[in-house]
């Protein structure tokens, strides 16, 4: 047991301790006030209560005073308790496809990591392409991005962390001082973040947005359709990210011979490609093909769960190996968010918010798209990206009706920027991992992250304006 004694004044400590109960008392009073006050014009009583729950969840998600999953559970409890949606219907919403898609994706990613395949790919790529400081940097950057196409960006960052640490040590890079050290960990973090928005698999954000979209409208977005729409953004951000990083932190080492030794040693330690790696790799490839070709007909979650079943039928993984990779908190959080979105929609609250709060100034589709994408990219810097989706998507869907917009377009406007968090360690675990290494400081991250924040928002809007019409994703110009 290692202990630390806080020697600040006892009154300061008491005041800090009192903040939490005070916060919850204020939140409870606020919630009570919102749900019991006279409904505003055009708002139904159940809509009023739905807004109360929405605001409560918003405050709890943003403040992080309780785990996000617990906030979602609270929403699940309050929606039927306040009579917004019947109990049976509420709990049935938890069985949304998106929840099972996320579960399947977690298990598949866990299988890939557990088999050692992802580690092998990383080492092989670095050994093959990383023979100079710049090439090694690009290798890590692209590797993090490409791996995040297929598995959670958080998992990719965590997987690459020990490799990057070993390389840094081998090169004698000084934490907090070495530019190359910073570059390595930025490459790991930003590569994961940028790659994470390329497909449905980089994070659970897009499936969640899709779940809310499908639950409240007839629209949907296909696996390939999404990737095709977002890919140019990913490419541009990877290029800009590399240029920004190497300008702010110029490479300060002449060669990486020592790092190659480490990579070589690690790669040799893996031995030859094992049966389980072959098999898991094959299942993963087939799953991606199935998502692309059969996703629309049998559903993404069905494909995921079939792939999961195959993994277990052929004993490629065991449940106890997979359990640690499944983030049950996120699954609970998504279920709650979908229920909350549905409650806002069914009670008419989402439409009322749009009509009364946003419709006056957001009169053109472009303005709405730009504002929602900005809100998403700004909010994701300080709150969970899934929470951003849960808060913004139901409102945006209500707005799309008013403007005659395809709700899928506004779902893009939120789901994609919500994954692009560059500025702060608390924005996403990938950034936190980079800062935790000791090589990247928060100041470094804010400095480079701000440029990326602005660039990402502008590029995303440009892609939507000029590229999307070419692939048939029009509608903003109407």
């Amino acid at each position, binding site marked *: 047991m290692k202990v630390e004694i806080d020697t600040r004044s*006892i009154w300061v400590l008491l005041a800090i301790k009192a903040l939490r109960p005070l916060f919850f008392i204020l939140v409870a009073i606020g919630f009570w006030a919102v749900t019991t006050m006279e409904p505003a014009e055009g708002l139904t009583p159940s809509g009023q209560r739905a807004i109360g729950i929405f605001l409560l969840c918003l405050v709890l998600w943003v403040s992080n005073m309780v785990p996000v999953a617990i906030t979602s559970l609270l929403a699940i409890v309050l929606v039927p308790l306040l009579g917004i949606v019947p109990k049976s219907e509420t709990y049935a919403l938890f069985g949304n496809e998106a929840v099972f898609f996320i579960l399947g994706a977690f298990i598949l990613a866990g299988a890939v990591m557990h088999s050692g395949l992802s580690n092998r790919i990383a080492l092989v790529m670095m050994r093959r392409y990383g023979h100079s400081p710049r090439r090694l940097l690009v290798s890590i950057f692209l590797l993090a991005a490409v791996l995040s196409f297929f598995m959670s960006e958080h998992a990719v960052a965590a997987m690459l962390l020990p490799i990057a640490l070993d390389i840094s040590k081998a090169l004698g890079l000084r934490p907090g001082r070495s530019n190359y050290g910073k570059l390595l960990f930025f490459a790991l973090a930003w590569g994961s973040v940028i790659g994470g928005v390329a497909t449905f698999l980089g994070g659970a954000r897009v499936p969640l947005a899709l779940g809310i979209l499908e639950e409240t409208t007839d629209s949907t977005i296909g696996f390939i359709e999404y990737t095709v729409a977002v890919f140019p953004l990913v490419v541009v951000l990877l290029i800009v990210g590399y240029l920004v990083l190497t300008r702010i932190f110029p490479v300060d080492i002449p060669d990486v011979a020592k790092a190659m030794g480490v990579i070589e040693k690690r790669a040799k330690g893996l031995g030859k490609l094992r049966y389980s790696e072959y098999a898991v790799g094959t299942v993963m490839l087939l799953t991606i093909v199935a998502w692309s070709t059969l996703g629309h007909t049998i559903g993404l979650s069905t494909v995921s769960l079939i792939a999961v079943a195959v993994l277990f039928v052929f004993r490629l993984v065991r449940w106890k190996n997979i359990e640690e990779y499944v983030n049950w908190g996120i699954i609970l959080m998504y279920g709650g968010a979908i229920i909350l979105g549905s409650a806002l929609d069914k009670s008419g609250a989402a439409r009322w918010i749009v009509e009364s709060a946003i419709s006056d100034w957001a009169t053109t589709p472009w303005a709405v798209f730009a504002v929602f994408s900005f809100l998403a990219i700004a909010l994701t810097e300080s709150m969970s990206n899934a929470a951003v989706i849960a808060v913004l998507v139901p409102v945006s869907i209500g707005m799309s009706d008013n403007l005659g917009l395809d709700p899928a377009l506004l779902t893009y406007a939120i789901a994609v920027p919500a994954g692009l968090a560059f500025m702060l360690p608390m924005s996403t675990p990938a950034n936190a991992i980079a800062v935790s290494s000791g090589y990247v400081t928060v100041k470094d991250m804010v400095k480079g992250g701000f440029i990326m924040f602005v660039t990402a928002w502008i590029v995303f809007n440009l892609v939507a304006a000029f590229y999307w019409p070419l692939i048939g994703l029009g509608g903003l110009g109407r």
Partner: protein
Amino acid sequence: MSTTGYFDNPWALKIDLMLRGVRVVDPLAKAWACGTTGIDMLLPEETLVNIPCREEFTEHSPYELRRRGECHYITDGTEEAAAEILPVPEFYSRKTTTGVPFGDIAVVHGSYTVITPSPKCDFFDTDSACRYCTIIPDGTGEPKRDFTVEEVLEAVGAVLKEGLSKIIYLSVGFTDGDDGGIEFLEPYIRAIKKHHSCLVAVEALPPKKNRWIDRTYALGADSILYNMGIYDPELFEVICPGRAELVGRQRYLDALKYAVGIFPNGTVASHLIVGLEPPGSTRIGIDCLTKMGVVPILPIYRPRPGRALRIEPLTTEIIIPVFKHLYTTVKKSGVNFKWVRDISMVTTPAEASMLMEGAAGELTPLKNFYSSRFGLKAAWGLSTIRRKLRVKNTEA
């Protein structure tokens, strides 16, 4: 051998009795004192004192303990003061489930019950031993074993059930290590805190690393004592050669200073033994410790045959000003001395206040509160809350 005026002030009488001891004629009192370090008595104004009565020097004491009917009194032949012999704790006669007499484990000294879970001290029977140490190996040659946590817990349960003491005082001898004995005491402190709502004071050696002081507090110690014994640097080296060499006087001062920042105000204490160094040196020690925020506690040296360490002349007239200085210095410094309760073996700053003219009336209501059941509960509750606020477990 004047005893002039001491019968008027029981606190002054306490000091004089501790210095000179008492001759015991009464067989009942003799039986009480048998096998103990002294006889615990209650003088007027609830003045608790442990009076030496078996040591050689007490044979020349002007004081005698006598009995009149059912009551005892102390007299010098001309004056007398009522003296109530504290009843022998009932639990002393009982044993743990493993057969160890509770009296071997726990010894009541007023508000404090002293428990030394291990009889070992690496200095025993070596040239490094503190010259004034009164612990004598039993001579059987058989190594004594440590008391188990369960045995100590049973003893604490018995003490608290009988309502004799409010604070459990755990002490440990010297063992060479970084931790000052805390690693050994850890399971005892944890167990006592887990099973009983009582305050725990710990007497240990200053650890080499401050993190052990943090840990002592985190474990549940409500008070810590690193007993220097002697402030004078040269005398410290001569009288405590082992501690001087393996711990170092400066480490005592550093550890006490650090502990003051960790433990609540008034709960870090150190003994300075009156009579082993010139009174002026004790005064300087009081000033130094008090300036750091440490509560100095002054026991009086009890000479043993063949260990003539006492400075001479040593009289109550000479040492009472030292106790007065203790009170005025501690009071002026703002160190909270009120939680250091009545201990029969020593004189605390709160007791020293009773030597000051006019101070007694000022302190009595406070003393009553601090020593009351409610005061104890308040102390325990505040101590627990404070610990919960301050301690952060950074690693399991």
